[in-house]
């Protein structure tokens, strides 16, 4: 077990290192002088000089990397030339919003997916299973940006429910009721996407597990259906679910920007898009780095949970 965790941890560090190199090198992959990319063509020589000093652009590339890395390890992601604020502090205010949104959506998704998948798997091809499978399949084909657009159209425009439309975001600290209202539609949208994945994965695994001999064995011990479902079937079936959740939550952190952007919720995604729009290179680089590392960490945590749930994994 310990060896497994250590091995994964080594891999994690390796991946984070590669990500850091990637993010660092991104600017050199782009055509043109880095200073021009960052500052735009009409930058003043004074600004260029500051930038050169900040990034050490006149030094060899290896050294540049260490300067850059050193800054990052001190929590210094640079200061944006556009907004003239520290990138790190911008990220610090934006990140909690994403976390709240993801937590809300995952609670909704799991609360719906687990019991429904259990019901569905108990009688595969039964009426409920057919309805749920067809429904989830249809939802699978509706991108989240369409769901959120349609939700806004119906809920906030046609029904006129307050605080649900674009630009109604209020921080959790100032008014938690309005905050929840304003996050309702995006959280629901993200929950729908997650639900579809979780439901389908868990259902198909449960159906497979329920055909296993050890389930027959559990029945022949005289256990009740409920106990068999929860104690014997759920845990071995949840490995793929956890794997999917890890990837999906990482994906939400990286790809949740669409809903944020549409509703003007100032999370990381929204900040990223505005950064791109204003060609704020340092901000984009900082967010890419933070999100990538976040995704890798989330995957690591879920891999760990999986290895606890299924002892077979660490033994391979």
């Amino acid at each position: 077990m310990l060896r497994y965790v250590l091995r994964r941890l080594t891999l994690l560090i390796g991946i984070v290192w590669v990500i850091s190199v990637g993010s660092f090198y991104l600017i050199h992959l782009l055509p043109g002088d880095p200073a021009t990319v960052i500052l735009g063509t009409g930058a003043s020589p004074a600004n260029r000089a500051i930038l050169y000093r900040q990034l050490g652009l006149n030094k060899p590339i290896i050294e540049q990397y260490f300067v850059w890395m050193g800054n990052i390890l001190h929590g210094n992601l640079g200061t944006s030339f556009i907004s003239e604020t520290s990138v790190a502090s911008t990220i610090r205010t934006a990140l909690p919003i994403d976390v709240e949104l993801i937590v809300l959506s995952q609670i909704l998704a799991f609360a719906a997916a687990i019991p429904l998948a259990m019901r569905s798997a108990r009688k595969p091809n039964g009426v409920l299973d057919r309805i749920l499978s067809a429904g989830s399949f249809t939802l699978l084909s509706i991108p989240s940006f369409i769901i959120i657009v349609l939700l806004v159209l119906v809920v906030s425009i046609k029904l006129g429910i307050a605080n649900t439309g674009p630009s109604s975001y209020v921080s959790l600290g100032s008014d938690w009721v309005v905050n929840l209202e304003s996050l309702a539609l995006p959280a629901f949208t993200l929950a729908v996407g997650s639900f579809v994945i979780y439901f389908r994965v868990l259902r198909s695994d449960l159906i497979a597990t329920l055909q296993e001999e050890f389930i027959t064995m559990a029945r022949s011990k005289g256990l009740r259906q409920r106990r068999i479902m929860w104690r014997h079937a759920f845990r071995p079936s949840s490995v793929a679910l956890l794997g999917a959740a890890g990837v999906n939550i990482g994906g939400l952190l990286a790809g949740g920007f669409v809903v944020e952007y549409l509703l003007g919720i100032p999370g990381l995604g929204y900040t990223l898009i505005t950064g791109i729009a204003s060609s704020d290179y340092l901000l984009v680089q900082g967010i890419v780095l933070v999100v990538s590392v976040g995704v890798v960490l989330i995957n690591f945590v879920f891999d760990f949970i999986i290895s606890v749930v299924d002892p077979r994994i660490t033994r391979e």
Partner: protein
Amino acid sequence: MSSVLDDVVDPEALAPKRLGALFWICVGWLALNVLGAIFANVLPLVNPLYQNYNAINAGPSLHHWLGTDDLGRDILSRIVYGSRVSITVGIGAMVIGFGIGLPLGMLAAFRRGRLDSLLTAFMYVFLAFPAIIAVIAVLSFWTPRSLFKIIVVIGLASVPLVYRVIRTATLAVAARDFVTAAKVQGATDRRILVKELLPNIAPIAVSFLLIGVATVVTLEGVLAFLGLSVNPPTPSWGNMINESRTVMAQNPWLVLFPSLALCLFLLCLNFIGDRLRTYFDVTEVKL
């Protein structure tokens, strides 16, 4: 032991296999979309960029079957022309993704050894990196944007995913005895790859290809929302949905029709992929 397993009657195994009518309806719809995209110039459609100021935000009518947008452009025509972008990006990116990922994945899984370890480690690092962020980051700073660049960036970003799916599938097939048997009969590696492995991973590859196209088409929509897809006024499904948001309250058709076109397209792709998997009895490869 299979002799004992035979004793258990499995109703599923005895069922005659059929693709079903819905499958062919989906194939038909996709074909219609693709043909429309190819022959859009020849079809009796209004120029999608022509602005008819006499019919702004018009609802569906005989003249404009699906109505017009806020600039008086014909929605049906824009949807048909817009499908060109979506379909080109979807197919183009997957051609790149499979062109690179499929041979590499098969080779790595078949040869194993150092080539496999190196390639797989490399690909897995890229997999850990959120592809969507990478695509956005590269596209946002790689100006001026063009359809070609979008296809290349998405295509390259999909290589690690394709590689993983194909490699996993090939590993499963390569472990079977008939591959060893071919080796033992003196077949060359190339012959084994083409004659023994490829036909057996083809069902998985095709079904993943369809799902891949669906994902890329969705991604194009996302890019359009961020203004990173083709530049307006060239229509794409994503562009159309994005532009219509501002006038959503006045003209809901503007959101609904392109959304419907996109969703139906995705639904058909997903459904065909899903049916093919069941038909060829492929256990679901987690995507």
